[in-house]
């Protein structure tokens, strides 16, 4: 059963990812991105990360892709891009080489280190996040305990980051006013 879920979600992820980089229409690419994001959410559920699966669907598929679609529609850039022309010689080949190299390196690292992944564990298992915590508490509860105890400063800093992002975006997206008050520095 787990194997079945893995294969189905993996196919969703890979088909969606290939769709993102091969569809010439931006809307189709955004829809393929949704397929990939849902596949990743299924993977999260299969690995007992229910909170992250919910956040993945709400934030990524719900908010970010809608934002992409809004920009596509508002700007009217939903034109086909001719993918047959290759602006730079060898660009595709070099990109395929780089991508294949990246995949090969990571797969090699993952497979060659698969037996000693957990070996460094006992040195750092004295934290509150031991196996028992994960097993006993629900997923949301253990994430909350970790987030609001060990990473509470980082959590507060994300609010600063979000405020900066919102202010910066408003500043960027606003049409520049007529430069009457502009001082030449």
């Amino acid at each position, binding site marked *: 059963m787990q194997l079945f879920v893995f294969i189905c979600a993996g196919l969703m992820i890979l088909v969606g990812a290939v769709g993102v980089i091969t569809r010439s229409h931006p809307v189709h690419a955004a829809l393929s991105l949704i397929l990939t994001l849902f596949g990743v959410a299924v993977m999260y559920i299969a690995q007992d990360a229910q909170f992250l699966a919910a956040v993945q669907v709400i934030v990524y598929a719900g908010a970010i892709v809608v934002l992409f679609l809004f920009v596509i529609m508002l700007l009217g850039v939903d034109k086909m891009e001719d993918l047959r022309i290759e602006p730079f010689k060898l660009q595709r080949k070099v990109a395929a080489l780089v991508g294949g190299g990246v995949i090969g390196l990571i797969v090699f690292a993952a497979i060659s280190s698969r037996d000693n992944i957990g070996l460094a*564990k006992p040195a750092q298992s004295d934290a509150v996040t031991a196996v028992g915590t994960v097993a006993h508490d629900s997923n949301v509860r253990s994430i909350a305990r970790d987030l609001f105890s060990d990473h509470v400063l980082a959590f507060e800093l994300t609010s600063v980051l979000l405020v900066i992002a919102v202010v910066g975006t408003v500043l960027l997206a606003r049409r520049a006013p007529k430069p009457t008050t502009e001082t030449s520095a």
Partner: protein
Amino acid sequence: MIAASPTSTWYLVLAAVLFGIGTVGVLVRRNPLIMLMCVELMLNAVNLSFVALSKKLGDIGGQTTVFFVMVVAAAEVVVGLGIIVAILRRRPNATADDLAELKG
């Protein structure tokens, strides 16, 4: 447990393939919107491997990190799309090749 139930290495390999596809997309595509989508693909690949290792090690810290990555990714998309809107409003149909200079 079925004998062939997927281990964390399978998830890591899948995440590697997803990351590679995203890399190729960023390198090949010229529409800045699609390049941003490919960056999202790469971030999701990293998140997937974080969750796989979190499950493998029994450490919830990986999932907390994924949470932060999602927050930063949302902020990144907002700012990136703001920049793209600002650029495309000034010169429609700009591709990544046309954006070699910062000045509008």
